[in-house]
């Protein structure tokens, strides 16, 4: 990945930070986007020898991409990782799925991914866009219906963008199962056991493993329009 420039949105922690580090280790120049967690993002960027760029993906996408191009002279890989992380959305109570929650998740997870992709498509000569979804978007789940619904939108958008932007830009999606990120901290002991019992590999995924998938999709030149499910065997779809 020498000389390749990469933007990972929502990369101040969790999967995004792991991806940023992995891209950097592979030789890429990495832009670490964040919305509010400036100190964490700057630490990740320092580790990566890259830059931290502030912005809300749903509101500031054009500026974000412009800034990356200004710093790196171009953009080759966009990872649309930013997603709203709000434990209040993690509920099985339909009454708590407020308009406001829908709007906020929509603006980050779906509209944000679209606007960053659109801005990236303007400046990429050839490149890769890698989206992030999760398995509830494929099979449903007790909790997190709002997230799942909008991640299902990301799955659909991935295919549409793959068609529209081919052959210049490959567009793929990673659908993660239960990964060991801050999300896992929202679960109580019973919930955690329930999740584990559905996973053949009997563990949560490591952020490194998510990063490995991102790296693969960023380097392979014949994969496009695909959803790669990384879930320890939970869905088998």
């Amino acid at each position, binding site marked *: 990945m020498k000389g390749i420039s990469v933007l990972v949105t929502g990369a101040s922690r969790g999967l995004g930070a792991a991806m940023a580090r992995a891209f950097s280790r592979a030789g890429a120049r990495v832009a670490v986007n964040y919305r509010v967690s400036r100190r964490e993002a700057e630490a990740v960027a320092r580790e990566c020898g890259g830059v931290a760029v502030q912005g809300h993906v749903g509101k500031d996408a054009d500026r974000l991409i412009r800034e990356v191009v200004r710093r790196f002279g171009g953009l080759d890989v966009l990872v649309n990782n930013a997603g709203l992380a709000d434990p209040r959305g993690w509920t099985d109570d339909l009454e708590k799925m407020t308009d406001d929650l829908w709007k906020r998740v929509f603006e980050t997870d779906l509209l944000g991914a679209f606007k960053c992709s659109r801005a990236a498509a303007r400046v990429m000569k050839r490149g890769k866009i890698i989206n992030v979804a999760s398995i509830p978007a*494929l099979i449903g789940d007790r909790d997190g219906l709002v997230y799942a619904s909008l991640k299902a939108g990301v799955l659909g958008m991935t*295919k549409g963008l*793959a*068609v529209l932007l*081919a*052959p210049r830009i*490959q567009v793929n999606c990673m659908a993660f*199962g239960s990964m060991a990120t801050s999300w896992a901290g929202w679960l109580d002991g019973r919930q955690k056991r329930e999740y584990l019992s559905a996973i*053949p*590999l*009997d563990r949560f*995924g*490591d952020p490194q*493993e*998510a990063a*490995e*998938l991102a790296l*693969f999709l960023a*380097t*392979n*030149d*014949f*994969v*496009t*329009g*695909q*959803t*790669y*499910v*990384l*879930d*320890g*065997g*939970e*869905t*088998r*779809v």
Partner: protein
Amino acid sequence: MDRRFEGKTALVTGGSRGIGKAVATAFYRSGARVFICGRDARSLVAAAKEIGEIVCVQADVRRDARKILRRIDRLDVLVNNAGGMEHYGRFEQTKADAWKRTFELNLFSAVEVTRAALPLLRDSKGCVVNVASDVGRRPFRMGPDYCAAKAALINLTRYLAAELAPVRVNAVCPGPVVTGDWSPRDRREAAARTLLGRTGRPEEVAETVLFAAHCGYLTGAVCGVDGGAVRTP
């Protein structure tokens, strides 16, 4: 340099030609000890000469699963790559013996080799990568038997992922990849089937196989590498 498979052993069935040869080459270059098997002694020798220090086993996966595995004392990655189309016909012309031969070559061979390899894979907590096809996800006029056999291999992959864990089992589904002598018209048609407007290279499929073999949380997955030809799950 990529040394991801240093100290690991990989077996690639149908490893002397085409995609299998590219997969064997990629494993070799990333540090693995590599076994390949194939029916034709001459192409095995030619492949070994090209790749480097690998072990060739002349064998037919339809009959010799246990014979192949007797040569191996440790195994981390099994790539069920052997397969193919022996004929090309519409449904009404595809008779029972053709169906049988296609399923023997593309499904039962993978079943038997996997069964024979399982004790070694359990010891190493290894993995299986089944090379299926994009037509196993969404059929194309490639013969009903071939499409059905590849679909069966994909579903077997998902089944085994649950039953055999912690041994991981994944499928890689290549789209059109030119490996033998294709007519210009076949090439054009195949390229037109993809979003990228070209056929794939064996090395691109090999990269996908190595990813599937290495990524420790991937199991029961269907990894398309087909230029966007198929976008269904």
